């Protein structure tokens, strides 16, 4: 066997984009002695071919003949130049390498076989650097979890060969252990099970008269993990609120679920049961929506964590009913403030800017490759997300109405389709169920999963064909919990018999337990009737998708696992799924007593507005949005960016999923973590109001909006923390019922707190993301936020109150305040309905939601987006009596407000329609390109050129 090493460099004169990017990264680290960086792609190929063929591979496959050169063997930088340091970054053994797979296929196409292909990145760093600086650079360029760095020319990359697995059944002594020993065992095995759970398991094995095998314990731990069963939200809670006692038998069931049940909408097809919530789209089709978080993995490996976050959530619609076709992605991120110095970053934490860039790149590369437009999102910066960034990934899918449910029967075959199983993602579900510490980086590196979007895309393409032909009866994804949870769920009512040695593996060496609990990506499990096996196998084989029968659904209600014919596990399905002890928790919340800061009134608010527009949370996210393909599939109607020069903000996205119908889906979100510092109830309520407002602004019907909850909280074993969650859940019930918008799906991620090496803890703020999906009857009536024409009238609909508490204005003053925005639920609903009616009647030229930064920011955005000015007068602002303060009128973030542009000839109809809700004319659109706002005495308190406002807004995140 010959080993060939290829290095591919850019030719002199062609731009080395890779090297340039790394040089910029190094400069960003504060190292200015590096003069240049040269990048190269390295391929290590083991194959029985001669040098002539190797040269053919180099010339025709690996190097671009126009702009690249290849070199066989190792290159050394020429002597005489500046000091050069060679850094090579290889993947660790066993880590998925998609490029390697493609290269093997291509070499096969060229007529030769090769045994292994490995790829690496090589950088030649020119300039004097110290060892300490080199370490910093290496840390920036590579990820310990999945990569190995080789420095210099002499060291060798890791061997790709793994030892084969020798079967050895492990039984653990459980029956004789006392409580402390049980807890120790749980810790030793990273099971994240507590004493009561361990005791319950011990009792079960006592009842069947034997000790468990390792795989049995692992399977139970995974099925019972917080990540998989959400035991906190399902637990019974004794809640003390301002001294009064409340009790919930099942928290989530009595709040979020209860609202949906009470609303009982006939257009809800499947709620909270399946992998995504399903609602009716039209007579023929249904749409489903799911939002997941991938927080812990993204903290360790931002790129891989976020990529598999999007890859994972895509498999939810794909695994809903008989499988939906994904049509739109959403992404919401929470990061630490990006301009931190490295000294301010706790040990074990990546710099927030690195996390942000990695996360965006991960979503970009996976989402774009899948061919699914990423259409909506948000980014929120706060230092409490330093150790625990939040990465929410969502997906909307469409499927025929008669394919919304699957049903497994005994005798059907269990087939795993798509990616192979590897060691990646082991203990992901259990790992994400605990707090993060500075040691996680080393201890849980195996929990990081590696994605390959093309495998998932091929799997999707073929599954949709098989679905159309009715060749399988049920489907689910291998998400957190892997095969264990997928097969376990599908066979819960029946029983399942699985032969683990049949599962296709990425490489040798996996034990039977690793096979069962691996969370390797891109795998789906389907139930296939034996008579359809041949047909369905042909579909998969026809497009090079691997699909393997690994077992059968049975009738014995037991989960039976074998390895090479020998039984390694047998657990009663009932125990696995219903054996989890019921939890009771205590929660407590006392209303906070804050006060409003005294802030001096200003002559004018020009600087304040410019500053607000430049805050990271309000500033344009164009840098991120443009990296996502938001138009693939050809369905985008309202894009994330709009306006005269395609760079203004839109409130929500609208996609048209069917070419032969003008019906659309509006997708938006709401999230206000700052309000939660004052009152989690109103934080949650404002999120609901904002999500609804956003989709109504573009044209969604308020009576056909479905919403999703994603709770991200810190350590809920603390009564106060759980108390704030209970308050938010109560708001979810009240809000959903009042607006008539059912929750159809949701997910929680708890324990988002980071324990630093000195023992201090950084807990994230209570963060509830509300995502909304609303039906748009006719996309041709959609409205955007940019001003359309001078002479048009501008109205504010909805009341402005003295509510600067938790506002971005106060944040710029490092204040929190007390008056958090509240929602008048009755008016909020009527306002949304009236705005919709006006849009539907084509009375509205533009409409913008008034939220972060308040009225002044919303007006500025509408103006610079449309390239037009505004002459506004606060005399016309509908406001409460206590809202005399100018800052409050300009920057208060009161809910349920819309700014609407109306053509003069439509004024009468519009005004008639708004009767019954607070509204007032605030001004008009003008040709002069300034935003001018006068106070009630007629004095200009804001007068800034719209271009200055726009630049302030565009600049901060132009990375």
């Amino acid at each position, binding site marked *: 066997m010959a080993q060939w090493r290829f290095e591919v460099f850019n030719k002199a004169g062609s731009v080395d984009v890779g090297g340039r*990017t790394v040089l910029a990264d190094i400069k960003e680290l504060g190292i200015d002695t590096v003069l240049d960086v040269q990048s190269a792609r390295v391929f290590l190929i083991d194959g029985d071919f001669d040098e002539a063929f190797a040269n053919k591979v180099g010339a025709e496959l*690996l190097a671009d003949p*126009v702009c690249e050169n290849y070199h066989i063997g190792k290159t050394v930088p020429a002597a005489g130049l500046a000091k050069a340091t060679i850094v090579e970054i290889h993947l660790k053994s066993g880590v998925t390498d998609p490029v390697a797979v493609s290269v093997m*296929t291509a070499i096969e196409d060229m007529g030769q076989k090769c045994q292994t292909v490995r790829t690496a990145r090589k950088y030649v760093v020119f300039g004097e650097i110290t060892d300490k600086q080199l370490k910093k650079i290496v840390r920036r360029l590579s990820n310990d979890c999945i990569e190995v760095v080789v420095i210099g020319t002499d060291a060798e990359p890791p061997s790709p060969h793994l030892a084969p697995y020798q079967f050895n059944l492990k039984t653990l002594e459980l029956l004789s252990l006392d409580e402390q020993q049980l807890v120790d065992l749980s810790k030793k095995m990273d099971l994240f099970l507590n004493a009561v759970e361990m005791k319950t398991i011990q009792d079960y094995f006592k009842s069947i008269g034997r000790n468990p095998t390792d795989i049995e314990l692992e399977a139970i731990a995974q099925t019972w993990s917080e990540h998989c069963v959400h035991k906190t939200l399902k637990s019974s809670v004794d809640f003390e609120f301002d001294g009064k006692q409340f009790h919930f038998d099942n928290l989530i069931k009595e709040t979020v679920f209860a609202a949906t049940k009470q609303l009982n909408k006939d257009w809800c097809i499947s709620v909270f049961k399946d992998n995504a919530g399903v609602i009716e789209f039209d007579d023929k089709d249904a749409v489903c929506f799911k939002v997941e978080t991938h927080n812990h993995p993204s903290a360790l490996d931002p790129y891989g964590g976020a990529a598999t976050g999007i890859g994972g959530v895509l498999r939810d619609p794909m695994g809903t009913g008989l499988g939906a076709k994904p049509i739109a992605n959403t992404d919401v991120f929470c990061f630490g403030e990006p301009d931190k110095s490295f000294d301010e970053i706790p040990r074990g934490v990546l710099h927030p800017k690195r996390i942000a860039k990695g996360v965006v790149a991960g979503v*970009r590369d996976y989402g774009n490759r899948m061919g699914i437009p990423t259409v909506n999102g948000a980014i929120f910066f706060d230092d409490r997300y330093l150790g625990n960034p939040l990465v929410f990934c969502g997906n909307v899918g469409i499927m025929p109405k008669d394919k919304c449910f699957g049903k497994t029967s005994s005798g059907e075959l269990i087939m795993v389709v798509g990616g192979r199983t590897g060691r990646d993602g082991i203990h992901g579900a259990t790992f994400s169920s605990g707090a993060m510490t500075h040691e996680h980086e080393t201890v849980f590196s195996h929990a990081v999963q590696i994605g390959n979007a093309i495998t998932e895309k091929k799997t999707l393409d073929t599954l949709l064909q098989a679905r159309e032909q009715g060749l399988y009866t049920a489907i689910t994804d291998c998400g957190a919990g892997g095969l264990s949870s997928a097969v376990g769920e599908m066979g819960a009512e029946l029983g399942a018999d699985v032969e683990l040695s049949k599962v296709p593996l990425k490489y040798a060496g996996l034990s039977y337990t690793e096979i069962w609990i691996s969370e390797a990506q891109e795998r789906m499990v389907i139930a296939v009737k034996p008579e359809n096996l041949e047909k369905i196998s042909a579909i998969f084989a026809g497009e090079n998708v691997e699909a393997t029968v690994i077992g059968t659904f049975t009738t014995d209600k037991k989960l039976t696992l074998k390895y090479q014919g020998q039984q390694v596990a047998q657990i009663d399905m009932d125990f696995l799924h219903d054996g989890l002890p019921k939890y009771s928790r205590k929660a407590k919340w006392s209303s906070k007593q804050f006060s409003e800061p005294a802030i001096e009134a200003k002559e004018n608010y020009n600087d304040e507005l410019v500053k607000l527009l430049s805050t990271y949370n309000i500033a344009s996210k164009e840098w991120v949005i443009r990296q996502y393909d938001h138009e693939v599939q*050809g369905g985008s109607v309202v894009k994330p960016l709009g306006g005269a020069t395609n760079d203004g903000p839109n409130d929500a996205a609208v996609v048209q999923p069917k070419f032969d119908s003008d019906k659309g889906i509006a997708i938006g979100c709401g999230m206000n973590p700052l309000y939660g510092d004052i009152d989690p109830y109103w934080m949650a309520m404002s999120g609901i109001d904002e999500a609804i407002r956003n989709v109504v602004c573009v044209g969604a019907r308020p009576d056909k909006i479905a919403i999703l909850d994603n709770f991200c909280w810190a350590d809920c074993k603390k009564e106060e923390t759980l108390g704030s969650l209970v308050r938010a859940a109560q708001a979810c019930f009240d809000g959903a019922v009042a607006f008539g918008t059912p929750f159809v799906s949701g997910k929680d991620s708890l324990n988002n707190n980071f324990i630093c090496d000195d023992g201090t803890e950084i807990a994230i703020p209570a963060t509830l993301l509300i995502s909304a999906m609303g039906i748009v009857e006719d996309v041709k009536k959609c409205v955007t936020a940019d001003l359309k024409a001078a002479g048009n009238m501008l109205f504010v609909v909805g009341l402005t109150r003295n509510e600067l508490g938790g506002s971005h204005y106060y944040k710029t003053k490092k204040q929190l305040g007390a008056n958090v925005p509240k929602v008048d639920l009755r008016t909020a609903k009527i306002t949304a309905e009236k705005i919709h009616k006006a849009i539907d009647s084509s009375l509205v030229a533009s409409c913008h939601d008034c939220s972060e930064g308040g009225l002044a920011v919303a007006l500025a955005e509408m103006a610079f987006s*449309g390239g037009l000015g505004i002459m506004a007068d606060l005399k016309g602002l509908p406001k409460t009596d206590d809202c005399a303060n100018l800052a409050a009128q300009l920057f208060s973030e009161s809910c349920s407000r819309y700014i609407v542009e109306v053509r003069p000839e439509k004024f009468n109809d519009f005004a008639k329609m708004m009767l019954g809700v607070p509204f007032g004319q605030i001004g008009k659109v003008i040709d002069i390109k300034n935003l001018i706002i006068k106070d009630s005495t007629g004095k200009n308190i804001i007068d800034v050129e719209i271009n200055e406002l726009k630049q302030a807004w565009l600049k901060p995140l132009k990375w």
Partner: protein
Amino acid sequence: MTQVNAIVLRAAGINCDVETQHALELSGAKAERIHINRVIENPEILDQFQIMVIPGGFSYGDDVAAGKILANQMVLHLSDRLNKFVEAGKLVLGICNGFQVLVKTGILGKVDSGAKQQITITNNDCGKFEDRWVYLEPSSKKCVFIEQGRRIYLPIAHGEGKVLFENNEVFEKVKADDRIAFRYVDENGDFGDFPINPNGSTDSIAALCDSTGRVMGLMPHPERFVRNTQHPHWTRLADKTRADGRTIFDNAVRYVQKNLL
């Protein structure tokens, strides 16, 4: 026979096939999406089509380089068939990834027959994937996909779109042969740097055709602008004229109707 038949090629990672099929059908063709494996198994299948479109996407993940693996596959398995297809007077259109594939197969990637690839498409100068709208000025007089004199507005969405020539001689030959189909301009028709030329492409080239004018590859996505509501600020526009992307498909179908049926 009056039916214009188009094949939209699928492969692992190709992801604009459905909307491309739709665009062709709007223009009056009957379009079928067929996986490359089926074509390799049974190349005669190509005989029934007059238009072949290689749509956008990330064929084989764009591993090694954009479009490279699919191009390799086509050269090794379908080279003769593709040449015959073109020699028969039929049309080939490569969009985005499809353009990259056509260049890397050599079909659009060389000026001297028998030579190795002399033109390539590589990383955007800005170093990252970009989704934005661009204006395109038609250049070639012989490219059958072009509506002469009509400047069009289309979205790009790619990370590797910079057209690069081996040397100036190759570029001059392409120019002399009238093979530059579209160039990036601003709304007034003037050339410029980023973002007008979004990827740093040589001479602002957005699309190339072959010597016959019947094979064209372009980085922008015409199939993403076949309805007015796909325009990025359609809510501002009173003008409801035909969406610009339609012109490419209309011209292709009309050419086939006129010359091949």
